[in-house]
């Protein structure tokens, strides 16, 4: 398990865009290791004849009529933005790998 999870938490944190300290990474690594170990019990099941998806109930979910509806008032949505400039949401400079 150790070889497989070596550096794993750091890689995943980068993919998931979450900054973690070294001690957090270390702890997470150990915990993920034991969780993955447990999840690997699924390998004991013979799933060769089982489809990935259940039959859907699409017929039970009618589509709503394709009609124009009143849009959200932009002000209501913008009021939740942590930072804005006029009618735009403001963010720091985009640089580097971002």
């Amino acid at each position: 398990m150790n070889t497989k999870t070596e550096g794993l938490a750091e890689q995943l944190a980068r993919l998931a865009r979450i900054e973690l300290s070294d001690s957090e990474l270390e702890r997470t690594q150990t915990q993920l290791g034991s969780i993955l170990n447990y999840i690997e019990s699924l390998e004991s099941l013979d799933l060769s004849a089982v489809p990935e998806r259940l039959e859907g109930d699409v017929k039970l979910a009618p589509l709503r009529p394709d009609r124009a509806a009143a849009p959200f008032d932009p002000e209501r949505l913008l009021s939740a933005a942590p930072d804005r400039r006029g009618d735009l949401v403001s963010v720091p400079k985009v640089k580097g790998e971002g």
Partner: protein
Amino acid sequence: MTSPSAADGLDPRLQLSLAEQRAQIRQGELGPSEVTQLYLDRIARTEPAISAYRCRLEERAMAHAQRLDGAAASERDGELFALPFALKDNLVTQGVPTTAGSRMLEGWLPPYEGSQHAALQQAGGVLLGKQAMDEFSMGSSSENTPWIAPKNPWDPTRVTGGSSGGGAASVAARSCAFALGSDTGGSIRQPAAFCGIVGLKPSYGRVSRHGLVAYASSLDQVGPLTRRVRDAALVLKVIAGHDPKDATSAGLEVPDFVAACERGVAGRRVGVCRAALDREGFDPRMRAAFLENLKELESLGATLVDIELPSAEHAVAAYYVIAAAEASSNLARFDGVRYGHRAQAGDLMEQYCRSRAEGFGDEVVRRILLGTFVLRADSYEAYYGRALKTRTLIAQEYQTAFERCDVIASPVSPIPPFALGEKTADPLTMYLADIFTVSINLAGLPAISIPSAWVDGPNAPLPVGLQLIAPRWQEEELLAVSAAYEDAFPHHQRLPSLIG
């Protein structure tokens, strides 16, 4: 049963069913603001001990109730007219803080109304507040919170269960007439069992998810937390049905759930998976209580039938893969840009990473990372694909089992309510406590937890729940059996005696 002590002074009107309270209100014996005040007083008395509410809305509730005082007779027809309720804090309420139990959403005022709150308001209900929960519903004890964890009213040194722990504690403490929770892997049923109340997870698609802050969209379902089975039927009737705002809500007629409560148990076949009772970690006291419950069902005229669910033991593993995968996608929206917590940072990437680190707690981070892992191209097949197939297999096994029975009886939790802090250090142990509930979500089935027994605890007897599971869309079966059981074994009359 032990006699209630401190709770002896409880106003008898807090012991009434929703239908009885509503009748008193309609007959003018109990005014809307009077009943709201009754619950606000109860909240003030019990909150210091149980911390069930994340946000209390005293003024708003009283203003609403006073408006209802003056309502015309025609406006008093609502199914839940003037009944004071509370919502899990992941159910969106326009203009009222909705945190989903996370710092990420602290201070957020939703710009729209969720369908559940809209339906309850439409029926005349009065919102008392928003209730404590595990962050983004990820947890089985309501301890995954940046704030204070709710306490079990039967023994405040113990957890409420989770993730809808605040709601379950509050209903048990009579500090709201009913509550709504959400259930992704047991989050309504397990806290209901831990707190000695009724918790119903409807079939996937029975209730709209519009306005439910998403955790795992293919598993999440909103449902009632109530003291009585008939109360759950009434609340479900109000919130069920197709909602054009949720394409996964089914376009099915809503059955008369309240009438279904009168159908009785006699002649019903109750399936039991005996193999599940030998699982490691199943507390012998809980096992004994469950076996006694089976005898009780038989005494009411049910026929017990043995069934097999051979893959159910893999449900926890499949569940944590699927739920984490969906969570990692759903929670990608919290990036500190348009709403929610934003960290100070020099560039956009740093802002994403820091905002998410500051906004999310440990368990949420763990599940996002787990979900990110299982969805990676090189682990998708071995983990996510395998979990999806396991899910299909489990659903097929339930279908086969239901050819032999009308409902399945099962424990809710393998263990009684545990001490606060006891399981927080080891996430996997906490996950394993979900063994009897997660397979139901994977299969999209309806299930209910009803109070069914008591086991000795160090400070006070602790409640035990019985779970009943039905084929999809057959909530009526659950209600029929549960209501008859409750009539014969009225555990709901007992009061928590260790709080105000």
